[in-house]
């Protein structure tokens, strides 16, 4: 009897992955019938997002309509779609955590726990205990600069260095009313130094684009010299030979763990699930690393030149702080910076 139980246990162990795989197989079949998904994505640059979408299409033959915008624009579109009963977005990937808190509370998200959720790095697991949203990308807001025009010793080392008058007309930032990265950065700066940080920054007349990735263009063009930028898009551009480098601020870089979730009432629910699984695959992590993102899968090493987050000081605001704080700082920003 005991032996039988043991046998059953062993069999179960052997079969468990099989059954999971069988589930995935069934999911894949169902997904292929749906044929396509629409992905609102702000985690990556347009190129990174297209790369991921293309890889998914290549593996499964399912078309991905990649709609890459800044987080707030993506969220606004999603809400507008929902309000008009035209939910076209299947998978929603924003960089503003508050969006997920609000969407979840409003019952707008589909609960789905990816089969591969246990395979990602422990640091990213169990992000939403209820399983409505799952981290699928990670990056940081750091200090970035044009390495051809600024010597390393002159570069800003901590966030308050950006307030130095020597950077007047030389600073670039994104806009918190568009970018989730910028919103989270502004929120964190307010927590560390109070709003007077931005009143001082305003005196340096920063050029404010919309996306945080706009800082990359501003630096490469030599239009601006230093920026609060994203490590991923900056280092990716540097790897293409552009004169860019990053400093991990001594007072802490902002760790951005950005989730994805399936939208309730999605038109392609199976394809959306399969896509969530795909975002947790080794392949997706490899593409992410190609774009200098932090890999979610422990099997994949971080991009060359990036610092593992265990080695540097990082700050990460909580979901609650972001949910409440970003709408506040957008208004404050507009009052201080004029629009």
């Amino acid at each position, binding site marked *: 009897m005991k032996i039988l139980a043991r046998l059953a246990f062993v069999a179960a162990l052997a079969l468990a992955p099989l059954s999971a795989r069988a589930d995935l197989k069934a999911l894949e079949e169902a997904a292929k019938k749906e044929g396509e998904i629409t992905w609102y994505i702000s985690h990556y640059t347009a190129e990174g997002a297209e790369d991921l979408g*293309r890889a998914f299409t290549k593996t499964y033959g399912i078309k991905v*309509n990649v*709609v890459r915008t800044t987080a*707030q624009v993506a969220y*606004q579109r999603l809400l507008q779609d929902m309000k008009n009963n*035209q939910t076209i977005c299947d998978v929603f990937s924003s960089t503003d955590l508050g969006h997920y808190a609000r969407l979840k509370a409003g019952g707008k998200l589909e609960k789905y726990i990816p089969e591969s959720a246990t395979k990602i790095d422990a640091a990213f697991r169990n992000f939403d205990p209820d399983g409505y949203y799952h981290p699928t990308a990670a990056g940081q807001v750091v200090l970035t600069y044009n390495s051809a025009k600024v010597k390393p010793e002159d570069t800003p080392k901590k966030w308050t260095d950006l307030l130095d008058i020597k950077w007047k007309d030389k600073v670039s930032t994104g806009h918190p009313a568009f970018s989730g990265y910028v919103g989270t950065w502004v929120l964190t700066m307010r927590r560390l130094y109070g709003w007077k940080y931005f009143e001082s920054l305003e005196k340096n007349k920063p050029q404010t684009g919309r996306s945080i990735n706009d800082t990359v263009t501003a630096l490469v063009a030599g*239009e601006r010299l230093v920026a609060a930028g994203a490590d991923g898009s900056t280092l990716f551009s540097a790897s293409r030979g552009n004169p860019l480098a990053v400093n991990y601020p001594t007072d802490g870089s902002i760790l951005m763990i950005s989730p994805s979730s399936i939208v309730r009432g999605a038109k392609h629910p199976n394809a959306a699930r399969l896509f969530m699984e795909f975002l947790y695959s080794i392949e997706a992590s490899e593409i992410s690393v190609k774009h200098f993102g932090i890999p979610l899968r422990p099997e994949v090493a971080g991009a060359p030149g990036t610092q593992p987050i265990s080695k540097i000081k990082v700050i990460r605001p909580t979901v609650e702080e972001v949910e409440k704080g970003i709408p506040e700082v957008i208004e404050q920003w507009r009052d201080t910076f004029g*629009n």
Partner: protein
Amino acid sequence: MAVTGTVAVEASAAVVSRAGRWDTTWLLWIAVIAVLLVLVVSPFVYLVLTSFQAERTGDFTLSNYATAYGRARYIDALFNSLKLGVGVAALAGLFAIPLAWAVARTDMPGRGFTRMLVLATFITPPYTGAVAWILLAAPNAGWLNRFYMFVTGAEAGPFNIYSFTGLVVVIALYSFPYIFIFTTAALELVSSEMEDAANILGAGTWRTMRRVTLPLALPAIMGGLIICFLEAIALFASPAMIAIPARFNVVTTQLYQFFGNPVRVEVAAAYAMPLLGVTVLLILVQRLITARKGFATLTGKGGERRPIRLGPWRWVVFGYAMLVASLSVFLPYIFLVQSSLARAWGRGFSLDNITLRNFDFVLFEHTTAAQSVINSFIYASASATAAVLITLGIAYIVTRRLVPFAEVLGFLCVAPFVIPGVVLAIGFYAAYAPPPLSLYGTALILILAFTTRFLPIGYVNASAALRSLNPEMEEAVRVLGGSRLMALRRVVAPLLKRSLLGAWLLIFIPATRELSSAIFLYGPNTKVASVMIFDMSEEGNFEYLSALALILQVLILPLLWFGQRALGRDFMLRRTAT
């Protein structure tokens, strides 16, 4: 006897069948009128109603107005727009009036070439111009600044596109063709006799121009200036690209903010009212001024028109024309091409900076960019076709006075002219996005909005063409027993083929680049090229942006060529075009 009998029988048969067809024709008229109600009246009514409605309940409220005008920032944006409009009109006048005078009245060399360059300016969408000027006049990296620093050895250059002045310059550079069109049209009617009279009385060329020629064209110039002002305050693309980094708002970018998260259509509607009011008012003023037709320069006498001899001055004038063209065409396109072929635009002209990657990316790698261009062309042709057919029908009803109060229909057709694109889009959104019609995110809502936006162009062309058509020919059809519809299809349309084609192109070309009404109405599957370009500009990828903008321009060229072949070289620069 027998012969007359047959005729009588046939005639009575014709009467019967005509009466039968009359019904169907009437149905068609009713349909056309209904379409007009849907396209013009309903969005407008919804716009006004919405501005007084509470968001969820729909109850009457004034709180939208309180919100819309409740902050200093919002009020500032209103004044910024007014300042912008005045600045643009003044600067565009400075660009356009000398050019128009030189082209229409003098022996300046390269007049045809200058016209061509004005046309090139005219078909450059405002956002393409804005992107090009960011490359030229970004405060540190802009090419003009670099050149200045290189020549003078200075630390910094004088130009800053990210400023109020920068925005004025960019908009003026791409809206001066409106003034040019109005002014040349008027100047070409001024006969040389008046100038001769001034010359005989001792006035030189300049004095004659100042005191005689230009004053004669003044009403037209004023009309052009007003159109330019309205164009500037209604524009969304250039302010979005330049005013956001320059950190100020104008009405249109503020409206875009109200459309942000959460979407406050009601507040946006309330905030759009001054824009609408100013536009209606100024269009009325413009009509009053231009209705005076100057000082009766249009006499029946075939006044002789000779070009004025400028002597050596003609080269100075030519130099000025080329200067303006450099600012609006040569420099922008040189650097657009450079940027579209560059790995990083700031690294300049060197071999290791050249790549075709940007074109490859926007055409083949990007899942939606190429599709967005296709969407633009499909929607534009659908709208152009719809607008031409509708306006032909209505112009026919109006010119042939087929229904009582036909003039009202004509008025409705030109009414969208006074509704700025963003405001029109808000009206459409309020009227058709929510249930029962639920057109949100569909191609149809974009096509309807584009059709409405360009109805005036269609109508002006169709009614001008119809007026030149003697009704006798249609009457012949009717006498022979054909219905009105048949007359329209078999006689009127074929005779007007050319004008209709012209109207179609005049609608199609601007519709392919329309942004201000598309920005509030597109859905994820109905993105058009202009919205794609605007989205791409978020990340500041000017290399991709330039590539996509150039692709869009190149695709227009065959149509332009075709239009010029079929309709004459200046078909886009005629008065009826605006």
